[in-house]
């Protein structure tokens, strides 16, 4: 059976048994090309998908999935989901609905991408790698240079009558340059996500990676102490991604968010706005509806420093007594959970050049999020690469230091956001964006 056939077959079978059920099928077709020294070193092509079933009974949702779309396997999966539901505790708000139809979000299918011959894509990667190498003799290597494209098909339907399908296409370029001088080595990575191939600029990306790596050579360690820090758009987007669980309605009800109980309170500086908007045309995490079929919408999360809303799945919204926000994401392998779509701090009015005047340190690369950022407390202590700033200008590069603080305290210490808005690398249905951000008084640990 095809994915849609298998989903409908499962719902028919559920209906015959008097079960309330939801079927979620997703599949992806992918191509990835990686080049090294001007030649293709890795070529990948994939087609895979699976069917996730949820059986809902008395506030309990049992989940099971299969990658085998035979009738026997789908029936077995339905039986497993029904059995599992019986083992769970009933929760208020767990039910299936036929949500209103979603408005179309333009620019997401991108048929042009798959239609373009592979040779052109390989050529883009080779040109990007060459552009990184031609930055200078100090670019010793370009370990990673690649192109990836994905077409995702999603179909969600339930026994309450809902039936929705969507197709999302996208393409990405990624490159990492390695610069070396004597014993010192530094890398710098760039990426670009696009809904049209013409938005990918391999030459510019390769150059930026090469220049980024070379610029970091000769790095020193900053002295430890309190510093005013300017985050690059990508490093601040990384912080937004790491701490987005604090805005999750599920985290809040389970006592895992430091924002629980703070709706309507001031949590950030006056000028801080954070929004989630899945309806933006052709943005990286746009979608007409979420994984439960709830129509997408724009959600102001923080307005003028005041915390306005958590993001919800349908059940956490019902329990919180609010309208669903359309933030259910899932793969067929797990039930819905809460995650942002396009989540961003809007661009401010100042150029990064102007913001440098107010900062001591500029951070261009921030890592370690999965281990040294704690959404439960908001605490972080993350390794960084960047530049010392003097008189508003970049001075020597900096390495081997951490920047530490608390995410909520940091929202209160944001002084300005730059006009250079961009998104970080999207993943798992979410994308995080911001311009450069100036934050006052963060702990920097370096030498001494």
């Amino acid at each position, binding site marked *: 059976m095809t994915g849609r056939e298998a989903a409908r077959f499962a719902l028919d079978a559920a209906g015959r048994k008097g079960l309330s059920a939801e079927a979620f099928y997703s599949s992806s077709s992918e191509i990835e090309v990686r080049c090294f020294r001007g030649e293709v070193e890795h070529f990948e092509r994939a087609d895979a998908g699976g069917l996730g079933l949820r059986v809902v009974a008395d506030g309990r949702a049992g989940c099971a999935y299969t990658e085998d779309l035979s009738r026997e396997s789908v029936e077995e999966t339905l039986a497993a989901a029904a059995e*599992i539901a019986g083992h769970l505790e009933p929760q208020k708000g767990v039910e299936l609905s036929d949500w209103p139809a979603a408005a179309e979000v333009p620019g997401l299918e991108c048929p042009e991408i798959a239609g373009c011959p592979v040779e052109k894509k390989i050529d883009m990667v080779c040109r990007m790698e060459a552009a990184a190498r031609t930055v200078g003799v100090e670019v010793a290597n370009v370990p990673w240079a690649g192109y990836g494209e994905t077409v995702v098909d999603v179909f969600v339907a339930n026994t309450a009558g809902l039936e929705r399908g969507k197709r999302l296409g996208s393409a990405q370029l990624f490159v990492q340059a390695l610069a070396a001088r004597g014993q010192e080595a530094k890398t710098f990575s760039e990426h670009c996500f696009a809904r049209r191939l013409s938005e990918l600029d391999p030459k510019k990306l390769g150059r930026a990676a090469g220049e980024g790596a070379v610029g970091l050579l000769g790095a020193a360690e900053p002295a430890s102490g309190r510093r005013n820090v300017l985050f690059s758009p990508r490093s601040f987007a990384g912080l937004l991604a790491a701490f987005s669980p604090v805005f999750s309605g599920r985290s809040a009800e389970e006592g895992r968010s430091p924002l629980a109980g703070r709706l309507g309170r001031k949590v950030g500086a006056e000028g801080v706005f954070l929004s989630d908007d899945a309806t933006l045309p052709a943005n990286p995490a746009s979608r007409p509806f979420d994984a439960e079929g709830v129509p997408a919408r724009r959600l102001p999360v923080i307005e003028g420093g005041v915390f306005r809303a958590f993001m919800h799945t349908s059940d956490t919204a019902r329990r919180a007594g609010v309208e669903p926000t359309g933030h259910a994401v899932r793969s067929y392998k797990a039930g819905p959970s809460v995650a942002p779509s396009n989540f961003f701090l809007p661009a401010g009015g100042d150029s990064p050049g102007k913001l440098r005047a107010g900062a001591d340190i500029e951070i261009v690369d921030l*890592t*370690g999020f999965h281990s040294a950022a704690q959404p439960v407390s908001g605490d972080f*202590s993350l390794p960084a690469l960047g530049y010392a700033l003097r008189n508003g200008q970049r001075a020597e590069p900096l390495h081997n230091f951490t920047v530490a603080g608390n995410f909520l305290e940091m929202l209160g210490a944001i002084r300005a956001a730059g006009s250079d808005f961009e998104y970080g690398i999207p993943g798992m249905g979410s994308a995080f964006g911001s311009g450069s951000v100036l934050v006052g008084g963060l702990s920097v640990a370096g030498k001494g």
Partner: protein
Amino acid sequence: MLDKGLLDAVLDRALSRGADFAEIFAEDSREFSFNYVDRAAKRMVRGHDRGAGLRLFYGTRQVFAHASDLSRESLLALAEGAAASGSARRLLTGRKLGRLSVGGAIAVDVPPGSAEAGEHLDFARRADAAARGVDPAVAQVTVSVSWIEKDVLVAASDGTHCRESRSYLMSSVEAIAAEGAERQSGRKVLSSRTGLADFRKLSVEEAARGAAELAVRMARAPHAPAGRMPVIIGNDFGGVIFHEACGHSLETTSVAKGASAFGGKLGRQVAAECLTAIDDGTARDKWGTTAFDDEGRPTERTVVIERGVLKSYLVDRLGALKTGYKPTGSGRRQSYRFAPTSRMRNTYIAAGKDRVEDMISSVDSGLYARKMGGGSVNPATGEFNFAVLEGYLIRKGKLAGAVRGASLIGFGPEIIKRVTMVGPDLAMDTGSCGSISGWVPTTVGQPTIKVSEITVGGRSAS
């Protein structure tokens, strides 16, 4: 899973346009996960994964394709599609698939999948009660149980033909303690490769109490100091320091591209003389142990550093082709959706003779990182970082109070030269390692070690 006739046909088709090598990795897995949160059984999922990954080499160029449909038509189409990127320069002839060899690295007593859901529920309730009983500050407890029973098969044009069943059972208890506005979490993990019967012998109450005590202690602790200082790193999961600071840079994935901080240093003194490190795919019943790697090669015990001298890299099939180093049975992948690459298995620093008390008394002002969390590394530059989950200050040779929120950063090649003392208390801990071939089960380990100087990322001035 797939019979020899079908494997032969798929490999023949894959080789039809002149590939030098073809390999098929097929998988059939059953998975289960269960979450008990806020005193309630909230989420439970059961699943069936299956599919195949097909890999071809044209010289050192790799073509990889995967599909979740294991039918004959789908697999032949997969082979056709993968082969299409080649050209019929010369055809490999005389290929013969060997007899199926069935791996049995680890015997399973009772398969995890045979447990009733009620057993997991009871387990979670016991953990929840034990954690909450530790202190009124324990505000939330999450218990998860998951298992995977995986059958993998590898068949390749060099005759490789093997199959292995692998079973992984894991539970974690996470407690959150709230002290005023402060919230901190503590986590403990229990795991078994040998099945349910052995898993039942582990004390979930002890793990839950440990997680809760850690959360409470950290919620009441001040921020860690910032700056450079001597650090003593505790045993078991402390081994993540070697895994990140050195291990990843030894994988041929980086070495072959000239993107490793340890490239070209075989036979050289790269670490302190007191340091010997091993990556062992054969260690008994460990998380990273398999009979075959995911390229069908028998796994082995690889001494990577001996008394400070670099002895071996971790080499997969393609890495061997690119570098000329002998393969070490290190080709691993998360699932059929990933092409394999060189990865760590069970990686540890060998035991030494220095007493832990002597390490502490040798430090005037520093940090004792008793429990480490996860970390990451840039293999090309050796820049690593990891989180300290349980830390204590050392003042004038004695342990002082607990501190929270520390992370350790540095350059791998420098740090492993600064290991000055190695204890006798080698212990291992279960982990999961992410890289370009996905997440793979690994073990990290070490005895307690002293590093003479490392940058501690914290928030208060030291």
